[in-house]
């Protein structure tokens, strides 16, 4: 691990430990076997296919049924670079100038139905993710642009050949959605896993009652001997936040893995005292402001720059962190990462200037120059989710009011919200988000590259300089060069061209019953959800 990454890992770990208030106590405890972990989930999974979906609503109840080739270390979840083997036996050293990775697989691993898990299953899985057939949706295909082929010289060996060396490859492999599927089932029907669950993970025998719960029981043949510690788990679906808080308060559930706002944390701590433990972390998730470049006047860079110049991010961080799950001011890279901008660098960017009055005066000047009248109205498209979407949206409207803009908010449920972004494309300005699992900025910033290559950029712009910087960063292992290119990309995206804007990075607050042990907060609500290491101190 290089020094920058060590610093990031150390700072994240210290932050989590401080918020835990537990120091080294966790490591000293001996896990107990037995019990059923009940946890609440705010939404139900749209399907059971991890390769297709992008939501935590799939990961939380479904990840415990599956194995991955590699995963982030659940015992060191705050270190985004600590990636360990799950099905493989040893993390490989790249060969062929960094272009070949050879993984040896564990022997004797079986799927729930008894079929042996071999290299063919891993290849079939990654072929589906990286080279999906035309009718198969793969949400993370773009993360494997560097992969040329997946080969299986024998039943226990998988070889990934890359087009060029890339430090983004291993983090991409460790994404928690990359469930290893049965080759035979995929050969039979590539859509089979959308409606069925069959894995080799720590839990099995999935039982589902739509709208209510998904249950699993411990896999007696799990390859990590002695694990899982739990007899089973029950994921209880509860859409309303108040219900989820009350479920934990009344001990109907022990934890919610996504994150609660500060007020819920305070209420639970006040009510339950030592029976509640709080884990907190910076969150690799950020709300964006996406102006529609296809629509006037947002095709004018002066108008876009005015929008970002009006926003008081430094103040907002201070105030909104009291009521919402946002906190850290940052640029396009997860704050604290070696590739992220530091405070001095951020303060050079539009919308991050230390002098707010000057920033807003410039915003007004730009609007006037662009012919935008005082009281100009537009609609902010937002998602019907309180935390943090609606709160940040309402705050933004207040910010834009300060420069004479009259903004209305159009709040839509998730489906229509995405339809507006992806299909209708008729919005003025929209809230958007960039939530990632493994901290992997080189690929995480693909959100900002041109529309025809990004796949998740909804502003409708094309900027080839940004694309070139993105490609160049991904084809070098020199971190200094990566950092320099990242700063240039950030300058174009957030300032010079004001292509899209960052609000504040999220902050993850997990208050849970103190008897839940072995689960450690991570910078993503997608990570560390296999639950093999979780145990109940009861």
């Amino acid at each position, binding site marked *: 691990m290089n020094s920058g990454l060590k610093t990031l890992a150390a700072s994240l770990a210290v932050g989590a430990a401080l918020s835990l208030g537990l120091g080294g106590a966790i490591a000293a405890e001996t896990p107990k076997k037995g019990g059923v972990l009940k946890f609440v989930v705010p939404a139900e999974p749209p399907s059971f296919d991890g390769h297709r979906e992008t939501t935590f609503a799939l990961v939380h109840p479904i990840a415990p049924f599956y194995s991955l080739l590699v995963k982030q270390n659940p015992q060191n979840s705050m270190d985004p670079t600590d990636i360990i083997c799950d099905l493989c036996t040893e993390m490989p050293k790249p060969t062929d100038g960094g272009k070949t990775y050879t993984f040896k697989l564990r022997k004797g691993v079986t799927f729930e139905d008894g079929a042996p898990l071999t290299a063919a299953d891993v290849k079939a899985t990654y072929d589906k993710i990286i080279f999906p057939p035309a009718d198969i949706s793969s949400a993370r295909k773009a993360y494997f642009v560097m992969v040329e082929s997946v080969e299986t010289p024998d039943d226990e060996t998988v070889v990934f050949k890359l087009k060029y060396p890339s430090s983004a490859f291993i983090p991409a492999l460790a994404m928690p959605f990359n469930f290893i599927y049965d080759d035979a089932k995929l050969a039979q029907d590539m859509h089979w896993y959308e409606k069925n669950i069959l894995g080799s993970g720590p839990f099995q025998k999935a039982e589902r009652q739509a709208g209510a719960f998904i249950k699993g029981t411990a896999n007696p043949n799990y390859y990590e001997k002695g694990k899982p510690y739990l007899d089973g788990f029950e994921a209880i679906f509860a859409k309303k*936040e108040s219900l989820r808080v009350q479920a934990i308060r009344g001990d109907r559930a022990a934890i919610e893995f996504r994150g609660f*706002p500060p*007020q819920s944390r305070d209420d639970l701590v006040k009510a339950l005292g030592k029976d509640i433990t709080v884990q907190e972390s910076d969150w690799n998730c950020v709300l964006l402001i996406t102006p529609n470049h296809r629509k006037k006047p947002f095709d004018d860079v002066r108008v876009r720059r005015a929008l970002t110049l009006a926003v008081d991010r430094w103040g907002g961080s201070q*105030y909104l962190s*009291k009521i919402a799950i946002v906190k850290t001011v940052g640029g396009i890279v997860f704050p604290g990462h070696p590739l992220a901008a530091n405070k001095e660098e951020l303060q050079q960017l539009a919308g991050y200037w230390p002098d707010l009055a000057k920033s807003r005066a410039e915003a007004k000047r730009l609007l006037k120059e662009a012919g935008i009248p005082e009281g100009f109205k537009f609609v902010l498209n937002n998602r019907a989710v309180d935390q943090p979407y609606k709160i940040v949206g309402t705050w933004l409207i207040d910010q834009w009011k300060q420069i004479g803009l009259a903004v209305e908010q159009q709040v839509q449920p998730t489906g229509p919200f995405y339809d507006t972004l992806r299909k209708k494309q008729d919005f003025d300005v929209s809230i958007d988000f960039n939530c990632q699992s493994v901290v992997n900025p080189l690929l995480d910033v693909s959100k900002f590259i041109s529309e025809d290559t990004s796949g998740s950029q909804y502003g409708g712009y094309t900027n080839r300089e940004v694309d070139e910087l993105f490609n160049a960063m991904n084809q070098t292992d020199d971190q200094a060069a990566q950092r320099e290119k990242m700063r240039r990309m950030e300058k174009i995206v957030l300032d010079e061209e004001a292509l899209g804007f960052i609000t504040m990075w999220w902050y993850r607050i997990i208050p849970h019953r103190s008897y839940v042990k072995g689960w450690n907060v991570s910078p993503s609500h997608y990570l560390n959800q296999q639950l093999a290491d979780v145990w109940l101190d009861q």
Partner: protein
Amino acid sequence: MAISELPTSVETAAPRRRTAWQQFKRVARRQPLGVAGGAIVILMILMAIFADVIAPYDPTAMNYSAFTAPPGTEFWLGTDQMGRDVFSRIVHGARTAVFVGFVASIVGAGIGLVLGVGSAYFGGKIDLVFQRVMDIFMSFPLIIMALAMVAIFGTGVDKVIVAITIPFIPRCARVVRSTALSVREMPYVDAARSIGYSHTRIILRHMVPNVMAPFLIMITAFVGQAILLEASLSYLGLGVQEPTPAWGLMLQGGAELYAESAPWVAIFPGLAITLAVFGFNLFGDAVRDMLDPKLRSQ
């Protein structure tokens, strides 16, 4: 009996014209709850009209140093989770409630009036088909119908008005039709037909004025329902959207999360909704009692 023997007191016995104040006192004696309801309605309307003058703060302005400030001299009813003055938002919320309530009620009842009278007047197959369509609409509870409409039209004040107006139409049309059916059989309607008046003229000039009593009763009943519906839709996140001040939205934003630590965030908008609906219902009942001949004779 000679004419001269007629009592001369007849001239002096003519009824005295009551002053407005006397009339008001008479109504207040007979309908004390109705007058109380009317007072609440008038208060709401005044609040809506003069919201800019009454409210001490901009209802959308966020005060970052006063999140969930308790009621006191600076903020009479406290502030919400975004530091906005609850009193100012309630006052401006009255504007949203009154606007949505009156527009949805008047438009819904107005369309219902025309359709109901038309259906009764033409009768036959038109009436049969029309009433079956009304049956379909009325088979859904009001809130379900409004939810369906919001799903079709989307969120926002204008769309909420449409969503509330549509379910009101069949309800008013059905009530008005029942009265219009008896009006249709009146000799003056036959007379109007026999001298060749157009259908439109007969409906508008001769039938509509004679079904005004149930129409007005429906309007007063609808306003309270519309306010409650708007608040319900906003509470569910399907109605008016932030930062527009609206009572249901105020409950949605803070009621659950801050129920323990800042109960005023939920209590005061809840009280405003309760009081407004209560006021309109009392007023509506009084109007019904006064306009319905059967109830009046009792």
